[in-house]
């Protein structure tokens, strides 16, 4: 673990470099490899007639931006959830938040034929909120605390609920089966930058919330008694942090469908590196989350050419061993 501020800063810098490298790889590698020079040209001397530049700007760039945004959001959301629930296994995908947002969007777009991106984003937030409330309600012990195993079970039950509803709708709406299936699997491909724009204010809002709450989040990690003894009111902090989770996870789903396990793995890696101070945890999560998803998405292009593996599948397959490792540990606190 890095202890001194300088070491942490260096660590963060190294993380930024890795993420940048993953971003470059995501831009340049794929079915058509694009030389670095074209990337430079695309910005310095744009040429509408050049095919590589077209691929780069209309396909690779949006894809990389979305992957980075979604990865960062999910990782930060996971870190917040692990702190809020004091549960090492908490993550947007495991506690059903992703599934709730996904199901609501599928319902809105099949049954109510809603297409406007902004409306769908709102619907995704609503779905994430409903799922979060359900899990909080169901995961509560008699005494009022959240028991780790119960919360995870509640999350799985809620996920099963939303996924099976969405699956049912998918079968009824066979024409859009394929496009919806990719959504269920989670994918950052095939969307333009214009889908990101309506979400940016929300992501910025969530980032601002995180920045404001950093110190209070550190307190939340302490015992409830201690926090009360320090004269802190945690209710409002929890509420705001919860709102940030909803926005981050719901927004990610609206952009890329269900991508699991990023929110689970990254916070653990970051805590192992930077310790428990949320100033470092959250910024590290944002960086490494973006890097991880960029790398996973790039890798997904090469596993089974010419087909692309949906990135959600990639992260799930990468994340499961990690989940099992955490589940086998003695303690379930983060």
């Amino acid at each position: 673990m890095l202890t001194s501020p300088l070491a942490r800063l260096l660590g963060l810098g190294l993380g930024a470099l890795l993420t940048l490298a993953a971003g470059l790889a995501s831009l340049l590698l794929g079915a058509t490899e694009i030389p670095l020079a074209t990337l430079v040209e695309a910005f310095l001397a744009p040429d509408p007639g050049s095919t590589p530049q077209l691929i780069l700007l209309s396909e690779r760039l949006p894809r990389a931006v979305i992957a980075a945004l979604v990865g960062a959001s999910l990782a930060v959301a996971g870190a917040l959830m692990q702190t809020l629930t004091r549960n090492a296994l908490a993550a947007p995908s495991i506690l059903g938040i992703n599934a709730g947002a996904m199901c609501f969007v599928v319902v809105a777009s099949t049954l109510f034929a809603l297409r406007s991106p902004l409306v769908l984003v709102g619907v995704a937030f609503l779905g994430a909120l409903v799922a979060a409330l359900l899990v909080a309600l169901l995961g509560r012990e008699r005494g009022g605390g959240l028991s780790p195993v119960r919360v995870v079970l509640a999350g799985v039950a809620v996920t099963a609920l939303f996924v099976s509803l969405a699956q049912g709708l998918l079968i009824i709406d066979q024409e859009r089966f394929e496009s919806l299936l990719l959504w269920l699997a989670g994918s950052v491909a095939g969307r333009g930058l214009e889908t990101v724009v309506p979400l940016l204010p929300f992501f910025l809002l969530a980032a601002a919330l995180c920045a404001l709450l950093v110190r209070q989040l550190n307190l939340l990690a302490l015992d409830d008694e201690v926090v009360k003894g320090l004269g802190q009111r945690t209710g409002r902090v929890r509420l705001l942090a919860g709102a940030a989770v909803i926005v981050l996870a719901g927004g990610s789903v609206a952009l890329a469908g269900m991508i699991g396990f990023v929110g689970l793995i990254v916070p653990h890696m970051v805590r192992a590196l930077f310790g428990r101070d949320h100033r470092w945890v959250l910024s590290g999560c944002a960086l490494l989350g973006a890097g991880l998803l960029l790398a996973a998405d790039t890798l997904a292009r090469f596993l089974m050419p010419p087909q692309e593996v949906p990135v959600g599948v990639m992260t799930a397959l990468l994340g499961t061993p990690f989940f099992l490792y955490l589940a086998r540990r003695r303690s379930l606190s983060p």
Partner: protein
Amino acid sequence: MTAPRADLILRTADGGLSLRFDRRTLAVTVLLALAFVASAGVSLCLGSQATSPAAVFEALFFPARSDIALIVHEIRLPRVLLAILVGACLGVAGLLLQGLVRNPLASPDVIGITGGASLAAVSFLVLGGAALGEAWLPLAALGGALSVALAIVALSGRGLTPARLVLIGIGISAALGAATTLVLVLAADTTAMQAYVWLTGSLYAAQWREVAALAPWALMGLPLALGLARHLDALALGDDLATGLGNPVRGTRLALLLLAVALAGSAVAFAGGLSFIGLLAPHIARRLVARGHAGLVPVTALIGALILLHADLLGRLAFLPRDLPAGIFVAGIGAPFFVYLLHRWRT
């Protein structure tokens, strides 16, 4: 010692064998059995072409005289029977798992058993298993379910404690889901759709062959579950107390897990990835009869069968002429109801 007044006791003359029935359980069982017979009857009568009960009766018992004998015998009857068997198996599998894990949120689909069967079946469909013949599909599914159960046991380590068992099941289940999606995405459109319908759980075009293949599993598994009921009662007291009562806790868990896998795996093999029945049926049963697993097993089986019968009936009739997978309705009605039950159960 005098028995509580609510009980009905049958005893052989020398007292060597005695059976005790809880009156409430008995009443509930009888009522459910009646509802069950009625529902099965209605299911046989309704379809794309409704037929009168008298005609169905005639077709059932005097097929030579009836002109709808073919419809009833070859289309509706196997489908109704399959629904009954699958529903009962899934319900009881859920009951066993919930008792085993001591958590009412466990069920074959949550723990990954259904997921294992699904992955195996979908891979079979997509990767050209059809060349081998559809008859091998159930075997593949059962194999998948069994391997998942073994993996869970192996990964849970020596303790086989409930919490760990569930968490590991959940983790494995997530990986299986991802792998299933991967297979689906890589598949050609038509097979992907076919596989997807299978995943949701459908009794469409059920045949006698399938009923005959599932029947032995159900007819052996359900009585066995009844036999293991008292072990579930012991486990419900907690590991320490159960051990104190002379119950080999680990062995019992293993036996219960294997039985649950056999029941759920075989059911899923023939009806696809139906979810929620294993979760719902035991919940409803527990609300109806309070005491002891010996009463819960038959009640759960009946409720599971009833749920699937009605879901399938809805799937057949609601969107005529389309025949929708029963799984949609099980999830659509079952899921919200489950949330309600879960909430009630806590407070």
